């Protein structure tokens, strides 16, 4: 009575599902079930009860089976919770979530009619969890998903998975460069202005990366929902103010000591504050908005946000510099 696994060909679950090798009905007694297990030489931690159409009607934990009175039927000792099942076309991430949320040792897979077609066991679940987490890490570094571990991926495929985003981000950073070109007069007159660009860009990038990471992980682990949007954005705004205050003071003092130019310090400090707050707001808002419209929030991670923040912060910086120094 081995179930046919060919139905999984081409699905996300291919290769993960084990066949069901014998069936049990609700009338089977505990003793009969144990005998079946022994003769089929196939111990499972969860046993599946099916009706005569092979539809899944209940589950029995092996431990309950062993402890029960041998004459009791499976219908009497079955678990009385709602059945947790997986569909043939579910993706791995949903499977992993079910294992984790419900502490399962085994997950039955049924088709649309409820017919039992196979099961997924916990050791595969651990593998899936690990793969999904790795994918999350990679997405947040702007790498497209790969199938195989690092060392086993060909150079070509690895380069392919990195290059797409690199190209996109490189071309967008050109916009930032063009903005700088427009302010040529400013920095030819005051070359010192250029030397603060790395600090502005880096700090903006780090701030954006901090808030986007925490928000993305919050969304992925279901700790944050879109209904929390305003709470989160407001929180990041407050954090931005606190953080930028400290950074501005430290940096302002440093500039005064190094360059003795209060106007310069003022320009940098204002640009820094605006950059930091903007970065935090963007880092919080973009992932949540992305999730709302169905895009994976992890794409709104550090690389993309940094690039957007860079462009805006350079613009603001030079505008202020021009105003303050009348360039």
């Amino acid at each position, binding site marked *: 009575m081995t179930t046919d696994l060919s139905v999984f060909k081409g699905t996300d679950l291919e290769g993960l599902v084990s066949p069901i090798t014998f069936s049990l009905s609700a009338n089977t007694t505990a003793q009969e079930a144990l005998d079946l297990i022994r003769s089929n030489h196939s111990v499972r931690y969860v046993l599946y009860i099916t009706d005569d159409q092979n539809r899944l009607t209940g589950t029995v934990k092996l431990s309950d089976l062993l402890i029960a009175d041998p004459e009791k039927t499976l219908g009497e000792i079955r678990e009385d919770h709602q059945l947790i099942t997986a569909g043939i076309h579910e993706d791995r991430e949903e499977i992993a979530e079910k294992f984790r949320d419900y502490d399962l040792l085994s997950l039955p897979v049924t088709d649309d009619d409820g017919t039992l077609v196979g099961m997924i066991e916990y050791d595969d679940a*651990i593998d899936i969890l690990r793969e999904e987490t790795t994918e999350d890490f990679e997405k947040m570094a702007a790498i497209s998903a790969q199938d195989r571990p690092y060392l086993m991926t060909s150079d070509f495929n690895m380069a392919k998975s990195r290059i797409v985003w690199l190209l996109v981000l490189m071309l967008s950073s050109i916009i*930032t460069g063009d903005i700088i070109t427009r302010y040529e007069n400013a920095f030819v007159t005051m070359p010192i202005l250029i030397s603060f660009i790395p600090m502005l860009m880096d700090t903006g990038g780090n701030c954006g990366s901090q808030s986007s990471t925490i928000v993305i992980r919050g969304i992925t682990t279901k700790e944050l929902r879109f209904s929390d949007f305003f709470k989160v954005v407001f929180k990041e705004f407050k954090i931005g103010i606190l953080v930028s205050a400290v950074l501005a003071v430290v940096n302002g003092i440093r500039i005064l000591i190094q360059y003795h130019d209060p106007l310069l310090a003022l320009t940098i400090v204002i640009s820094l504050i605006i950059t930091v707050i903007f970065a935090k707001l963007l880092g919080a808002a973009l992932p949540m908005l992305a999730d709302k419209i169905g895009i994976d929030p992890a794409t709104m991670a550090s690389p993309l946000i940094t690039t957007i923040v860079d462009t805006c912060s350079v613009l603001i910086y030079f505008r202020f510099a021009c105003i303050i120094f009348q360039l």
Partner: protein
Amino acid sequence: MDQISENIISRLIQNKKYPLLKNILVELNPFDIAEILGGIPQEQISTIFRLLPKELAAEVFVEMDSDEQEVLIKACTDKELQAMMDELYVDDTVDIIEEMPATVVKRILRNISPDMRKSINLILHYPDDSAGSIMTTEYADLKKNMTVSEAFRRIRQTGVDKETIYTCYVTDESRHLLGSVSIEKLLYAKGSDTVGDIMTSDIITVHTLDDKEDVAKAFDKYNLLAIPVADQENRLVGIVTVDDAIDVIQEEAEEDFIKMAAMQQNDEEYLKTKSVIHAKNRIIWLLVLMLSAAVTGKIISGYEDAFSAIPLLAAFIPMLMGTGGNCGAQSSTMIIRGLATDEIRLSHFIRVLFKEMRLSLLISVVLVAVNTVRVLLQYGSNPEQIKLAIVMGLSLICTIFAANILGVILPMGAKKIKLDPAMMAAPLLTTVLDACSILIFFGIASAMFHL
């Protein structure tokens, strides 16, 4: 839980249709019930919780948020508390206690059996990140000379209170661990065989003070359901089960995410943490990185003449820094993650280094080609612009190589000197990289344009 069921349940709660609500709730999984309780106003939680039968109530309790657990504990009588605590496993009780304020803990400890209290105290004494802190003392133990039939009898008598009976542990009179026997072996054996005949003596064991992260990885590596935990004298003290290992793996991954974005760990949930605390977790690294970016700035100010002469050079700084940063993030993320999952080991250093170098070559070819075309299209193709394109191309190549190579060396180097590789991630890497790539860029530019 689908939306329709959620709506029905909220309606029933609002209208206080408790008998009907109870019928629906008892059919659900503890996890889902806990989610429902998490979504209703706190005053109503204990009323609805009391609808549940004892066993189900305990299972739901374990899945609830610590805030809601506290509310419930405060709302129930000592007798109710006692009844519920009786149903819980030791490791779950420890988890709950760890999240409660001292007064609540005292009340809980007063209302549990002396045996349970002993086990809990034992586990609480182990350091936070150790195997001892995530284990449970409720394992199934058998003696070597038992027959299989006797073993089954014992399992049936005591199995209800055990965390798992799928792996049973064989000990001697002094509780020294002799081996383990799986439920499969017991089922396939003859009633007259002894446990000693069918047990496995050579089993994976961990010690109470081992790092819980290593223990969790062992589950992944050996596909185990449970691992025995022994003390210094190799006496069995408890077991760690796969569901706890999965939780540890999840926690460690979340920690890595935080570290790689240059933040300090936060134990509380995001929305429950005050902004000031969040700011504190973020500021240290921001300060460090900001001051190191000032170094890059200093380097640039040294080349003031260069971009006074050729202002266009300044326009390329964002692209250089951006691309370097993104490449560095990509390689370091993969290396750090690979180290965390043991897919990459320190012994792979040379292989990984050469792989990243080959990748750098492939990536630079594409990026430089695209950029060169862009520069020539945007600025024209007279000798000055061609020189510019060459300077850009060369700097880009050097930056990409440096980024990917550092992305390997820094994390693996950190691991070698026993630091956490997750600290050598994008923020730190980018700062180091920026300084290098600016130096290279202006160095080449000066040489090319005789500045």
